[in-house]
């Protein structure tokens, strides 16, 4: 069978496995170039920000332009610490998954700033509806690492009673909603939550995160129309990490030049930002949060970043993209960039960084030891078997009571 030219258009990435990684087609505007409008600006007036790229850290790792959030060295060191912890944790958990300690894992390598900086710019009381790649929020909000691990290895201390896949965290105390494995379902939920907070007269806002591939779902459009219609105090984040498992971003983007631009069709405020620039993510989130809290409505933020590792432990990226792309991503590594910025300010150095990595590595190893003392997926102890019948309803009905009896637990 001979192949002919495709009879309808199917987008394809510039390069595939075996090719040389190449991002020369990606236009990167200079840092500091984007204007920072007032937070009460009308959505359509942010069109240029949907097409540009908000960047604060320049090639020399200096903070420039109107979007510089002017954080203190302490704040930036804290952000760096959370990002390094996220990375160290992810690396350790991947190793443990490979050793069979958990069924599944998803890293967020390369995307640490997207989660950590946003979480730091929000109030801890703001409700987040993350996808499965924003574990950085939990570190920024100070969740206990042992608790996180107990969830991932589904043991007796898993606060989700072994019901969810690893990394599908829930932490009500930390205003962290229950993560769904289904895509984009929580985008419109975040809008509803934000509307309820407004209804109750609270200053709380909501934020949600999806991947760029997920922006193709109908729920994406549902969220945007709701957010626009009801002017909801919500931040809708699209993390454009270039890859939806094996599918390059062009399959979801089509002819749209950016994902942020999709918000313009709904009249929403739109920002496209350098997702590997901690300060840009912080500044954009801070802007959107202030806008939402002041009653000026929702913001769509596209964080332009790169998924440096596999989608999950179930796929091998060498089957769909060239090796080494992460090393030449034109926007660099978020950890390295913030680190160099702090070093440039004289507020950090290599020795302290190394010491930090060592300290966090030891913390993660010690935390895992402690987590394992509460059981492991394979050897237990787990939550009691009878717990599978709990929480289906407020009270189990006769069917569940009978089924539990049938199971003999």
């Amino acid at each position: 069978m001979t192949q002919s030219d495709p009879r309808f258009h199917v987008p394809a990435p510039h390069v595939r496995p075996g090719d040389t990684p190449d991002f020369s087609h990606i236009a990167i505007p200079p840092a500091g170039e984007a204007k920072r409008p007032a937070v009460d600006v009308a959505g359509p007036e942010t069109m240029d920000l949907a097409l540009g790229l908000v960047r604060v850290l320049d090639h020399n790792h200096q903070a420039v332009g109107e979007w510089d959030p002017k954080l203190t060295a302490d704040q930036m060191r804290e952000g760096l610490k959370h990002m390094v912890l996220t990375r160290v944790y992810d690396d350790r958990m991947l190793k443990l998954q490979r050793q069979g300690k958990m069924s599944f894992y998803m890293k967020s390598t390369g995307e640490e700033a997207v989660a950590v900086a946003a979480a730091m710019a929000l109030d801890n009381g703001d409700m987040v509806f993350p996808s499965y790649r924003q574990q950085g929020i939990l570190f920024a909000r100070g969740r206990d690492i042992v608790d996180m691990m107990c969830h991932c290895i589904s043991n007796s201390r898993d606060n989700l009673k072994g019901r969810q896949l690893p990394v599908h965290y829930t932490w009500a105390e930390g205003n962290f909603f229950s993560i769904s494995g289904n895509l984009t379902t929580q985008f419109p939920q975040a809008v509803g939550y934000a509307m309820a907070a407004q209804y109750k007269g609270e200053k709380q806002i909501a934020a949600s995160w999806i991947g760029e591939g997920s922006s193709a779902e109908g729920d994406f459009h549902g969220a945007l129309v709701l957010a626009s219609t009801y002017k909801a105090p919500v931040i809708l984040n699209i993390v454009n990490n270039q890859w939806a498992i094996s599918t390059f971003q062009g399959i979801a983007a089509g002819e749209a030049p950016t994902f942020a631009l999709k918000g313009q069709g709904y009249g929403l405020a739109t920002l496209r930002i350098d997702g590997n620039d901690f300060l840009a993510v912080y500044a954009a989130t801070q802007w959107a949060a202030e806008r939402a809290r002041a009653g000026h409505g929702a913001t769509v933020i596209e964080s332009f970043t790169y998924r440096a590792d596999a989608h999950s432990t179930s796929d091998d990226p060498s089957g769909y993209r060239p090796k080494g792309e992460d090393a030449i991503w034109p926007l660099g590594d978020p950890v390295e960039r913030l680190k160099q910025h702090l070093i440039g300010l004289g507020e950090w150095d290599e020795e302290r960084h190394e010491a930090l990595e060592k300290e966090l590595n030891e913390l993660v190893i010690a935390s895992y030891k402690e987590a394992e003392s509460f059981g492991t997926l394979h050897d237990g102890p787990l939550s009691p078997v009878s717990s599978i019948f709990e929480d289906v309803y407020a009270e189990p009905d006769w069917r569940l009571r009978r089924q539990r009896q049938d199971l003999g637990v």
Partner: protein
Amino acid sequence: MAKMNMIQALNSALDNMMEKDPNVLSFGEDAGYFGGVFRVTAGLQEKYGLDRSFDAPINEAAIVAMATGMAAKGLRPVAEIQFADYIFPGLDQIVSELSRIRYRSAGQFTTPVTIRTPCGGGIRGGQTHSMSPEAFFTQIPGVQVVMPSNPYDAKGLLTAAIENDDPVIFFEPKRLYNGPFDGHSGGALSSWGAHPKGEVPEDYYSLPLGKADVVREGSELSIITYGTLVHVALAAVEQEGIDAEIIDLKTLVPYDIETITRSVNKTGRCIVAQEAPRTSGFGAELAAQIQEDCFYALEAPIQRVAGWDTPYPHAHEWSYFPGPQRFINAMREVLEA
């Protein structure tokens, strides 16, 4: 003949049909270049081109609707929904559109779409990668529902589904992709290589929709099931030494009532089994129909083996999964009554 696992057999059916009929197209999330997360569509894009095997945006409703539109124009699209758990955003397009085009247009338009989707648990997939939602689809007049239990049937039935002039929802029990699974979670994994149904012709063939197989003849009781549980039932029967007859339905809509009634009229005792939650599952339909058609032959109440009425748990997957012991309990119950 070749040794094939279920993934290879499904791939072979697609390959044969795409070779044979230029109107057959295959698409879905990650189903083009990469060949699907379970690799069922591997190699098809390379062989047949970008416009015959391609990646779709993550929008199940749009995928089903696109297939419907293509079918109305005379194509025979095969759409992959990555996991059956993800099919629900597409449900409106299936319930209100795809299934009814023939009826509401009085036959002026038809939509011969095949929707392939991996289903079932036993892979530590948690609640979003483990569901068996087949019963939902048996409630939709206008679609046929298929679930094979081995590579040979998978290929023949997928071929028939693609050739079928009505839409087919084709469930692939993913626990069976790489080998027959008997429900003993800790046991050694067997492969299709050693199984007679792992012998699959490389050339085109099709198997009729709507026909069940008696996979084990027996006299004491009848077990009516499909998909993964066919193998679990076989293991339980061997383990317990009961002379049970086991029927693999293969097609749920329309199900093979003749084979069922012949068996139940012979044995007088019946178990229906599904992996999905118990309430309003497909077993409930089977039990109702069997009592209508075989009431005077029945010597005991029909027993149901099913998943619990809970979401599919992650850590306690094997307490949820209806394994051999649950079959043994049901067999004892139905024999003692």
